[in-house]
């Protein structure tokens, strides 16, 4: 676990009167209830972040799920003085970027049709426009936009999460946002 995420704020309120730190402590001691509360608190944003970066519901589910499995594997080593959300989001977004890059490199000789997610709910017009706009961006641009506007990290926090210079984050945000707003307006 990288120490440079330690300064990030806790970005998610946790249901009930138990603090996230207490939940992590109890989960480390074997409480399924505590771990489920952590999972339920963080799943929606983890899944949506992955979905917006990769644009594929099945892949997003796999990425979010694999990220939680990584969290299970590292749970006992997790320093509960640090917030859980930024650490999880770092895994999710990096895996999503890797997946999106790999997909861009894969091209089939006959066809390059990805498996479509069955049973996906009909998205709203806004969500569809957003997805179409994000698809025009590079995976790295998508990632910083998602971290900034869905997960609400500051540019400085994004820089620390992705191990990038702050200027790179700002330029990706600016260019990505310009293209995205054009696409959404259209």
């Amino acid at each position, binding site marked *: 676990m990288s120490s440079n995420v330690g300064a990030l704020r806790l970005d998610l309120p946790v249901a009930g009167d138990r603090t996230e730190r207490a939940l992590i402590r109890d*989960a*480390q*001691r*074997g409480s399924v209830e505590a*771990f*489920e509360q952590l*999972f*339920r608190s963080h*799943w*929606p944003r983890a*899944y*949506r972040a992955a*979905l*917006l970066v990769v644009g*594929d*519901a*099945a*892949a*997003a*589910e*796999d990425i*979010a*799920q*694999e990220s*939680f*499995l990584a969290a*299970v*594997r590292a*749970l*006992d*080593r997790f320093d509960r003085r640090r917030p859980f959300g930024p650490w999880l989001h770092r895994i999710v977004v990096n895996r999503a970027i890797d*997946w999106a890059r*790999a*997909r861009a490199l*894969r091209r*089939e*000789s*006959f*066809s*390059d*049709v*990805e*498996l*479509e*997610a*069955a*049973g*996906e*709910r009909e*998205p*709203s017009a*806004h*969500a569809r426009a*957003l997805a179409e706009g994000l698809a025009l961006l590079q995976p790295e641009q998508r990632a910083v936009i*998602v971290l900034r*506007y*869905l997960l609400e990290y500051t540019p400085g926090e994004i820089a620390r999460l992705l191990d990038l210079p702050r200027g790179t984050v700002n330029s990706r945000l600016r260019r990505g946002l310009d293209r*995205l*707003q054009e696409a*959404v307006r259209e």
Partner: protein
Amino acid sequence: MRRLFDAVPSDTEAEERAWSVVREAYAHREPVVRRRRSHIRPALVLAAVAVAVVAAALSPPGRAVVNAVRRSIGIEGAQPALFQLPSPGRLLVSGAGGTWVVAADGSTRRLGAYSQASWSPHALYVVAATANELATVAPANGQVHWQLARPAIGFPRWGGTRTDTRIAYLTGNHVHVVAGDGTGDHRLPPSARVAPAWQPETSQHVLAYVDVRGRLTIMNADRGIVARRSRPYMDVRDIAWSPNGRTLALAARDEVALFDVTTGEAHVVGVQGVRTLAFAPDGRLALLRGNGVLLVAHGRVRTLFAAPSRLAGLAWSPNGRWLLSSLPAADQWVFVQARSGHRVLAVSHIRRQFGGEPSLDGWAPEA
């Protein structure tokens, strides 16, 4: 912009699927006892180490260590032996201890000193191989019907109809095909060391194999005519036909490709590192990757099971309700319920029962 992001739907079904898998992984994790900071002087540390060494020497030799290792790499609560299969059918396994048939009630029958085997299309016979001999045997008693001596035999696979069957196998870097009665053995073009696969549900003898350039090749084995050939794939590990014979799956280093053999179109599943593929009778596809089993169904990929250590081999029960894989490091077999609930049943001491680590060669219906 914020409102747009909030409009992105979440997926509660995905959340429930993921929670069932993550909960399973959490239940099987081994909590670590945290070390407290201390300021014990070196002399005391040395004394503590000496006490620990003495205690270890006085304990039953190695048992505690072995048990601790097994807990960390295997499934807790495993049965001490294979008493029965969780589903009807007969399981075929092979390894250093020979080829065995395991009945649903857990009884085992050794067919001979073979290292690889597979069922005939209707599970009436078994084709088995040693390094230099191919044989067809009766699963009830191991009686040999015919034998064929060939060098460096690998991956025997039996396909065809009830009345006319063919067996494909590899020798060195060539695929061979021989009729089910042992006649007409002939050699096909060079092949990679990947198990060939016969197309089911067809009156033709159509064989899929991977050529030396990594291209998936579909051939009429009687006529020697290539029907389709893919682009080269890097490091192909496994291929498998869907039960209806319409889809051919290929696992390569960086991807899994699903070919519609009618149109030739390929759909890519973005999963890297898959080593083994297995179709369920209803068409669901299981992928073995590292410590995990993934399931491809209705266009979705999800993790069905995550093990504490590396898995090996996959076999579906004939009714499609259970998946069997092996945890070699823990000397265990793991049965995972693939329909609902994701129950996990583990069995230990597999090597002792089968005289070595066996490969999973197929789970066939009752005769």
